[in-house]
């Protein structure tokens, strides 16, 4: 029987639909033209120009500080949450799970407004710190879900075996539990990092003066600045994000 070509065509069409806009952006970032409408030959001038944009570097620094900080803290809390979800039986666990899971599906704009109102009500000055807190809140959910996945096929008699062989709580944690969960923890952390570094909506609400992050900087450049520069910057961001996600996926697969 001859195999139908429809699935292949449909798949290719869908991928083109997904990636064509991004390809246009990437190719245009190498376009020498000031305006994206005409092709004037390959050039790296926009990438070179980026080096001199001090505001971009400032925004990148903010973004990195927040991304590292938020992913680190959310890894600690998210791992603990996943552990608590998996290990303890309680009637409240269903609610616990729902609350951890909710931020994954909640509209970002709601979270953004909610956090903004909350910070204002508390009288906290908006700035890097509030962005950091906001990012931690949604990153926890992602980390918890990834680590939970690892825990589900974790043989807990291994922990009992370690205790049986003389390991106390501390030794069990560092010699057995953490090494075995490390792929999940790192994958969760990388995911949190990519989410944090390109978050726009929530950040937009809770950012204050002087705390511009890279995505917000890009947004304001679209309004006031030069499109080719944005193309170059976006391409770099794209490469960084894809690399992180690829690593995260690799770690999840290796673990299986």
């Amino acid at each position, binding site marked *: 029987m001859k195999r139908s070509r429809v699935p292949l065509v449909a798949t290719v069409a869908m991928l083109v639909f997904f990636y064509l806009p991004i390809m246009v952006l990437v190719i245009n970032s190498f376009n020498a033209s000031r305006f994206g409408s005409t092709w004037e030959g390959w050039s790296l001038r926009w990438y070179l120009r980026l080096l001199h944009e001090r505001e971009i570097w400032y925004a990148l620094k903010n973004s990195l500080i927040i991304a590292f900080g938020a992913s680190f803290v959310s890894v600690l809390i998210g791992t603990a949450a996943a552990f608590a979800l998996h290990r303890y039986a309680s009637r409240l666990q269903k609610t616990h799970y729902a609350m951890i899971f909710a931020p994954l599906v909640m509209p970002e704009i709601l979270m953004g407004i909610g956090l903004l109102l909350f910070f204002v009500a508390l009288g906290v000055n908006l700035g890097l710190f509030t962005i950091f807190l906001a990012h931690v809140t949604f990153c926890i959910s992602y980390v918890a879900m990834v680590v939970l996945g690892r825990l589900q096929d974790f*043989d807990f*008699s*291994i922990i*009992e*075996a*370690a*205790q*049986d*062989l*003389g*390991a*106390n709580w501390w*030794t069990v944690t560092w*010699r*057995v539990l953490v*090494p*075995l969960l490390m792929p999940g923890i790192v994958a969760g952390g990388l995911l949190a990092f990519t989410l944090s570094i390109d978050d726009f909506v929530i950040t937009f609400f809770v950012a204050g003066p002087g705390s511009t992050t890279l995505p917000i900087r890009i947004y304001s450049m679209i309004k006031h600045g030069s499109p080719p520069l944005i193309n170059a910057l976006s391409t770099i961001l794209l490469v960084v994000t894809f690399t992180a996600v690829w690593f995260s996926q690799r770690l999840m697969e290796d673990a299986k």
Partner: protein
Amino acid sequence: MANGEFLEFEDVSKYFGRIRAVDGVSLSVRKGEFFSLLGPSGCGKTTLLRILAGFERPDTGRVLLNGRDITALPPHERKVNTIFQSYALFPHLTVRENIAFGLRIEKRPKKEIAEEVERMLVLIQMEDQAEKYPDKISGGQKQRVAIARALIKKPQVLLLDEPLAALDLKLRQRMLMELDLIHDEVGITFLYVTHDQGEAMSLSDRIAVMNGGIIEQVGTPGEIYEAPRSSFVAAFIGDTNFFEGRVAEVVGGEYSRLVIDGFPEVLCFNDKHISVGNPVYLSIRPEKFHISREKPETGNRHNVVQARVEDVIYQGLMTRYWVRSGEYRISVARQHSRFLLDETPIRWDEDVWISWHADDGYMLERYSESDEKLVSLPPENIGEVNGEGNGAA
């Protein structure tokens, strides 16, 4: 075994919610003994083992090891080690590192650890597999690594939680022999948990049969098979036939006469001194019957019953006859010599006599719920459930 009680459970109970997993168990194990906890799943045997390992705290009672109360000690402070059913090897460590784990935690000198590990690798014959990770070795090898990892700690008691359950039949039989050899070699006390009567029978010095959180009987394999103390033990270990009766008369203290519906009066050994009028089960193992065409000459302690053959199943090692007498379908096992030269083998539909010695029948009290369940099982099923694996005696 001169040291008397080495490991003691004193009135130990453990509840999970409303379920009594272990219900007031008292038990003593001697030093160097191979002791088995045998029972169906959910009988409390694994809970008892986990209480000894320190993974569960009993709700009542104490656990004494070598005279010391260890009830409240955490697992890592107890001189006992466990072989887990799933092996529970550390997947991120090699065979060598797995075995060394316990000693590394003690922070022993590196050289000493290396020597001990090498000794263990020789014991389990895995010197050439030492650098492999657990997912690269076979089930039997994992089992051996788990044993070495526990033994290197020189425990006072080695706990084995259904260690052979995950292995296939051939490997199980080989590991059975290896366990026996290792026990002889290291000479430490083994506490072995299993639901498999064959394993328990062939390995153990003594067995505790558990059911519903309590210990039904403790004894050597021979005692448990030949002289069961309860109908549960009789049915769980090997094959048996149950007859419902009532004590009619006590004869000279040692023996009693029983009335069983559809049978002539039956004489039976009465070691439990059950009094006249009490309902009892009479348990007779299939191989205790003698089967013949002519009515046998009976000594004064033999019982003889007429029966009709309903089925003959040749099984090589023996032949199983299903015979009908009154409402009972009775399983009779008989071994042969010169089988093919026998010109008159007993066949289907023949009238025969079955006889047994009064000492080979066991009277068991009939009172508990589990007994009633036993009655509702037709005799065929009792035979099936316990399988043919009763070569254990």
